[in-house]
């Protein structure tokens, strides 16, 4: 704390030896019959021991020197009768303010040493030049060099202020006026009328410390602000973690209850865990038996025996591979493995059957389900049971799910007309949304449903489920029959609302129906490549921020 001003006044106080009641009270003498002096141009050399709101004050005195050399030298700077400790009452420890000329560093050490043993509240030093009125130089100036590395500032328990030489001499000379008894001080005669003769009349000073430039408390302030900031961040982070955890748990619950299908929503592309995969039935391919041929004839009457297991008798498979009859229906439909295109060897090929009853070579399907997808490659029905929940629900998944549900709610509220129109009108906006949500390629996404007027190559869907037909037949059919099958197969258990049956007559209506249906399925087919990957692409600070504030976007 630097001093703004030092105010010196003259006071009268009773001699403690001659009064009954000793108190700290004193009388300030009237300014016209005493010395009053506000010291300006003060340089704070040390602000040690000064607290805010606790301005040092005390009786002025010149501390004693120890060596004769210094005492001799002092005579040039201090008037002979200036107030010493001896000129103050002996038995009471009054607050003191020391005054001394800084004429040599050695003698200054002696002054300080004396002052340290006395109840000094502050030390006023003045430069030896009696003409100087300018503010003395700063603490680190060589004028104040003590050759002790500045340690005096730490050993002194009081602040030190430097005043201009002229002010110092004035104070010192006035101190010589006010060191004797009341009759010797200026205006002593009139003072004697007012006060007992035993009273002391002395100079008294109060330092007005400037509260503005308090470096230490500035630091304290900063630390407090920083601490508060950290506290707020910490609390927010904690809250968000808790919220995010709740959301994760809620999402998990909803997934398990079947309210949310992560894959269908495009929240997460699931894969099949190994232990679940091993539970899917494996059995040797049996070939075509009489029974099979019979059911084949039966099935051929149903229009889309092709990829759709629903055209087949839906008796649920028994889990053990020792009931081959129940598989027969699936096997008649597939004589080749759709992945490697090899024919199944009757009784030799080991095939795996998925819940949708499609069969594959074990070697062909297992790596795909383990690493790529949980959907049947043919009909895209999920291999996982409804309510399956991946062991780890990540924040990314929570975020995506919320985003998608919000978007859906918005669409439901804002656009009552068909979502097909939205896509047609705003492909860009929808694109970016999908790119964000699903991580899909930002390519063109105008989803066209096949119309009846349009010819489709028949071969597109022929390979998987159709009973082995002579190849020639297909080639012949290449550019003929328009097909319904190009409409993505509905996956009933995906939580997508069932579309009504197509209005068969008006082509325009049918087209719209197909469009809507295709759109409803759009989200199903394309899970994102995996939330973790996206997480890695994000910049590092972004990830850090997300660690601290999960759920922050």
């Amino acid at each position, binding site marked *: 704390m630097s001093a703004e001003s030092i105010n010196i006044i003259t006071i009268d106080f009773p001699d403690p030896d001659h009064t009954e009641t000793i108190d700290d009270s004193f009388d300030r003498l009237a300014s016209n019959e005493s010395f009053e002096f506000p010291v300006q141009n003060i340089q704070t050399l040390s602000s040690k021991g000064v607290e805010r709101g606790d301005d040092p004050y005390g009786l002025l005195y010149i501390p004693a020197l120890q060596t004769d050399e210094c005492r001799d030298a002092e005579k040039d700077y201090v008037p002979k009768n200036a107030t010493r400790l001896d000129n103050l009452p002996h038995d009471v420890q009054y607050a003191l303010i020391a005054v001394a000329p800084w004429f040599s560093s050695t003698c200054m050490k002696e002054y300080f040493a004396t002052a340290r043993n006395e109840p000094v509240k502050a030390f006023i030093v003045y430069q030896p030049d009696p003409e100087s009125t300018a503010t003395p130089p700063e603490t680190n100036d060589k004028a104040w060099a003590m050759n002790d590395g500045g340690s005096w500032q730490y050993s002194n328990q009081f602040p030190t202020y430097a005043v201009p030489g002229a002010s110092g001499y004035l104070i010192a000379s006035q101190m010589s006026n006010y060191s004797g008894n009341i009759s010797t001080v200026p205006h002593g005669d009139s003072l004697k009328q007012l006060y007992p003769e035993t009273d002391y009349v002395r100079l008294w000073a109060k330092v007005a410390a400037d509260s503005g430039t308090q470096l230490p408390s500035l630091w304290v302030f900063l630390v407090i602000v920083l601490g508060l900031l950290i506290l707020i961040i910490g609390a927010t982070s904690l809250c968000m973690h808790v919220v995010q955890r709740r959301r994760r748990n809620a999402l998990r619950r909803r997934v398990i209850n079947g309210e949310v299908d992560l894959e269908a929503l495009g929240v997460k592309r699931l894969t099949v865990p190994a232990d679940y995969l091993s539970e899917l039935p494996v059995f040797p391919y049996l070939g075509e038996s009489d029974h099979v041929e019979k059911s084949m004839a039966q099935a051929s009457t149903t229009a889309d025996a092709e*990829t759709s297991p629903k055209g087949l008798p839906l008796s649920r498979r028994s889990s053990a591979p020792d009931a081959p009859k129940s598989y027969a229906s699936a096997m008649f439909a597939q004589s080749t493995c*759709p*992945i*490697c*295109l*090899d024919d199944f060897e009757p009784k030799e090929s080991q095939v795996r059957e998925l819940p949708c009853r499609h069969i594959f070579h074990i*070697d*062909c399907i297992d*790596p*795909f389900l383990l690493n*790529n*997808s949980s959907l049947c*490659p*043919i009909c*895209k029905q999920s291999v996982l049971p409804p309510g399956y929940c991946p062991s780890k629900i990540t924040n990314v998944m929570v975020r995506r799910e919320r985003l998608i549900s919000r978007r859906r709610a918005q669409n439901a509220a804002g656009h009552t007309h068909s979502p097909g129109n939205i896509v047609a009108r705003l492909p860009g906006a929808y694109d970016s949304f999908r790119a964000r949500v699903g991580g*899909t*390629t930002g*390519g*063109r996404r*105008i989803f*066209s*449903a096949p*119309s009846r007027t*349009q*010819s*489709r*190559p028949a*071969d*597109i*869907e*022929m*390979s*998987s489920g159709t009973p082995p037909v002579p*190849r020639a037949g297909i*080639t012949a059919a*290449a*550019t003929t029959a328009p097909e319904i099958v*190009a409409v*993505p197969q509905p996956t009933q258990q995906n939580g997508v609302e069932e579309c009504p049956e197509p209005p068969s007559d008006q082509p325009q209506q049918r087209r719209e129906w197909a469009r809507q249906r295709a759109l409803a399925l*759009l989200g199903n*087919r*394309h899970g994102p490549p995996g939330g973790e990957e996206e997480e890695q692409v994000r910049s590092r600070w972004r990830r850090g921020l997300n660690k601290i504030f999960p759920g922050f976007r």
Partner: protein
Amino acid sequence: MSASAKKRIMREYGECMTEKPAGMKINFDEQNMTKWEVLMDGPDGSAYAGGHFKLEIVFPNEYPFKPPVVSFRTKIYHPNVSNDDKGSMCLGLLRPDEWKPPNKVVAVLRLIQSLMVEPNIDDAIEPSIGNEYKENRKEFEKNAKDWVKRYAK
């Protein structure tokens, strides 16, 4: 690329050879079997008749779980082929979310052929050409033939 995927590509090439879809020739390099070069004649009766188009079919590592990538190396004026140096095509069964492993290259080739006969306007990658096809068929055919003359002879 896994051995089974290679085996499947080999097998599909064999199938293409035996079936010999009309009006096309496949250049197959056993060293680099994931990239096929197909020379396709413009189908008779279409605006592209008389032209010879070079196509590239690239099989991704995840084949057959992901669709092959088809691109026209010869410039073609067509609503479903991007009008840039890529000449890419992405519709119908070529779209990743519609592709199924049982689909075969033969089907892809036939799809391309049929699209040259009748473009799919709803799925146009070049909407301006698609509009022209829909609204001003004469102009479209003139342009398409013009391009055939310029690039596909």
